[in-house]
């Protein structure tokens, strides 16, 4: 194993095979996708709202406040500017200020001791087989051909 893992599908003989790094990357991406708030784009992202209707951001700012209070309070946008740390920055900061814990990272659940289960990537039923090319599980020739036609190496760069 002297060669560098590229994370790409390689040609080995006639068969393309996804290497270990590629499989891990794909698994990570699948999990990241499961954390998304939306799969699609904001339907009104660039919408110019009708002249009378306030723009989305303006609506955010002015909502639910009496005029008197409005002078004093800051806009929602102020808070966006004032506290702009994302999750990764917060975590890094936390590790610097409290490296020994207990903290966010020390609380993370450890690895399961239970035997891993093998479920078909297509139909979800228990599956005895592994796809040679990408490592996905499948249970039958029918699911295998669905897998090959749809997912297998389709999305790999």
């Amino acid at each position, binding site marked *: 194993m002297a060669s560098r893992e590229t994370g790409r599908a390689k040609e080995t003989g006639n068969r393309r095979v996804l290497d270990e790094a590629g499989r891990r990357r794909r698994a990570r991406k*699948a*999990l990241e*996708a*499961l*954390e*998304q*708030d*939306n*799969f*699609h784009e*904001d*339907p*009104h992202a660039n*919408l110019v*709202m*009708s002249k009378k*209707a306030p723009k*989305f951001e303006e*609506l*955010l700012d002015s*909502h*639910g*406040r009496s005029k008197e209070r409005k002078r004093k*309070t*800051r806009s*929602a*946008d102020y*808070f*966006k500017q*004032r*506290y702009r*740390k*994302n*999750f990764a920055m*917060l*975590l890094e*900061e*936390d590790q610097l*200020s409290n490296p020994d*814990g*207990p*903290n*966010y990272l*020390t*609380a*993370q*659940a*450890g*690895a*399961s*001791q*239970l035997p*891993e*289960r093998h*479920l078909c990537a*297509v*139909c*979800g*039923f*228990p599956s005895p087989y592994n796809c040679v090319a990408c490592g996905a599980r499948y249970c039958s020739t029918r699911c295998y051909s669905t897998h090959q036609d749809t997912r297998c190496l389709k999305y790999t760069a």
Partner: protein
Amino acid sequence: MTSNVFIMDNGAHTIKAGYSNQTEPRVLLNAVMKAKSERRRPFIGDQLDDCRDASGLFYILPFQKGYLVNWDVQKTVWDYVFSKEIFNVNHASTTLIVTEPFFNFTSIQEAMSEIFFEEYEVDALLRINAGDLSVHKYHRDRPKELCCLLVDSGFSFTHIAPYIQGKKQKDAIIRIEMGGKMLTNHLKDIVSYRQLNVMDETYVINQVKEDSCFVSADFNADMKKARLKPPANDILRDYVLPDFTTIKRGYLRSLEESNGKSPNNEQLIRLNNERFAVPELLFRPSDIGVPQQGVAEAVVQAISSCPEETRPHLYRNIFLTGGNCNIPGFCERVYSEVRSAAPAEYQVNVSLAKGPTQYAWHGGAAVSQSAQFPEQLVTRDDWEESGFSACSAKFSV
């Protein structure tokens, strides 16, 4: 105390809010949403009830991985909660109890304290973990018990937190990266792959999940059964999707009516092993490649890292809160897995909170009535005198 107490369990999915003297909190989505069908305005929280067509609903959420990061969005939702439209909160005469996650980051704690004192100008503040509120109520209702092993399974994650004589054991708290959001997204994924593209329909599929899923008592046996044809397979069901004209809300058909037919052109999805394979992720995160312990394993692990003399008490007081605990079969499964993993000499007792989603809010109401409550608070004067350090001295998350 002369001021009113307002309690806000600020979850990543829903806010549970109301005055301490209310019988139930109001539960509203902690989100700003945009609908394809409505170009004129976004919907804040339960304004979504005014939205006729929630297909393709787009979410803007204040939380990321369970932590508050989008402050403009959060401020918008809070403004709405406090507004005349809902609670008409007069902050100057209000004591606020607001929740935050275990191990909340310091910057977020600072921002919250600042917003409530400087922006809303509350009279007094208690920032606290939802789990602390729940455990307070648990002990108030069961004064003889010495310990509590709290499970809070919400939107972003699931926490397992042991409390010994009411004191949170921070070293032993476990967080599993599995919650209702993942379950819904996973269901969306597999339905889209197997039957019908619903990737844009988080709102609808979340309802499908809540209406259809159950936690299996025996995963392998249910998998076998799901391979069979009805009537031997009593798991397979039709779910009728909403079309937002005649069908405003989707529903699960009964066993007898699940014939796969749609005489009135209803759009159906057929749910089979999906019904239990999705909540299964709470017990086996590794089924989708999350390399972590499941709920029951983590319960046993958390208890084993507490002092030995407390373990019998913890095993006897396993308490389930948070929205996912509503899933039928959840409590029974926790019991059976913990029972078989725990040392035989310990008695195991698992109970499900009545109203697991709202329980922490009720805990807040209980806290506000306790004799120690005034000392737990940071008042306006404290804040003006010492700022955030007054908060860090009193609040422990």
